[in-house]
């Protein structure tokens, strides 16, 4: 039997929620129901893809890099056979969803940074991204602003994320496509010599794996960037 004479505040025990049905929530349901009724896909297919979208994130990729930092043999494997190395962190690129391969996942490569080369990934055409191992792409990765400008002015765009690279480090921009996905393996930062895999994973953020940030002891969050609207070349003054 619960005694309500205790002193905790019930208003603070439940997280607030939006107590209003929004048009966008209704629209998402409407599109889904109509597509299912028209036979474009089944409710079961939608459920499985949604579960896939729910469970993916950058954790497997962070573990892969941490393992490579700790074990030179695993690093060799990761660079030579990235699909095999991915399996060791729980990602099967040939069956990423566990229920058949979505059309856009076929080849995967890991780009290792060196003291003189920094890698960064983009999809200039649309927003191809190594989703099975890195989760859903951040909003800015999808914007024409990032996609168009990174290819032309990589240092300027990286500086917008707070990453200033000296001239002696060359920047390699790797363009992804529907058949070929990439992720970056950054260099292990100083001050992490005795760290465990779990500690290292904390600082290998999504941004480091895209290449717009470098891992640093004590930094465990991604950069927050304002999404800039792209200026259409045809309308630019």
């Amino acid at each position, binding site marked *: 039997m619960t005694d309500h004479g205790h002193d905790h505040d019930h208003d603070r025990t439940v*997280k*607030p*929620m*939006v*107590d*209003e*049905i*929004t*048009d*966008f*929530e*209704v*629209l*998402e*349901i*409407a*599109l*889904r*129901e*109509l*597509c299912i009724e*028209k036979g*474009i*896909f089944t409710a079961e*297919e*939608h*459920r*499985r*893809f*949604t*579960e*896939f*979208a*729910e469970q993916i994130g950058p954790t497997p990729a962070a573990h892969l890099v941490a393992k490579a930092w700790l074990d030179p043999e695993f690093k060799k494997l990761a660079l030579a056979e990235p699909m095999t190395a991915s399996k060791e962190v729980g990602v099967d690129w040939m069956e990423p969803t566990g229920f058949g391969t*979505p*059309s*856009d996942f076929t080849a995967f490569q890991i780009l290792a940074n060196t003291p003189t080369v920094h890698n960064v990934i983009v999809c200039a*055409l*649309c*927003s191809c991204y190594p989703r099975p191992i890195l989760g*859903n792409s951040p*909003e800015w990765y*999808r914007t*024409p602003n990032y996609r168009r400008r990174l290819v032309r002015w990589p240092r300027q765009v990286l500086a917008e994320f707070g990453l200033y690279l000296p001239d002696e480090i060359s920047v390699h921009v790797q363009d992804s496509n*529907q058949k070929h996905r990439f992720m970056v393996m950054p260099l292990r930062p100083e001050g992490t010599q005795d760290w465990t895999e779990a500690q290292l994973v904390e600082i290998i953020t999504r941004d480091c794996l895209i290449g717009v940030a470098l891992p640093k002891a004590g930094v465990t969050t991604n950069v927050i960037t304002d*999404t800039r*609207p*792209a200026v*259409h070349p045809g309308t630019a003054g």
Partner: protein
Amino acid sequence: MSAAGDPGATEHVDIDALKQIVHRDQTWPRMAAKYGVENPVPPWKTSLDGLCDALDQASCDANVPNFKERRDEEDALSATLYSGLPYPENQLVSLAHSLVARGIIDEAELKRRLASIRERLEA
């Protein structure tokens, strides 16, 4: 009503049902601030991701946009007609626009469905 093929062509299709949604502006940043919710994205986002993946998988059907067409149209519409919407609202409304402009979903049918779903959710 069909505007498949050219991502820019879909912009010229007028869809009243979507205009009304944009006008009412129940976007997540506003809703989250109003109710003190901290989630960065709305609760329907992963279902939308599932919807897009399921569509991409099914795109061999006539006029259903494939992955690239869907994203091109989303980019074109998000930069023009729906530039006032944040992400992922612009992704959702652009997708709805593409499906109506391509004739996959009829606008009158969409309006009826929006009304019946709202009635169901508010029952």
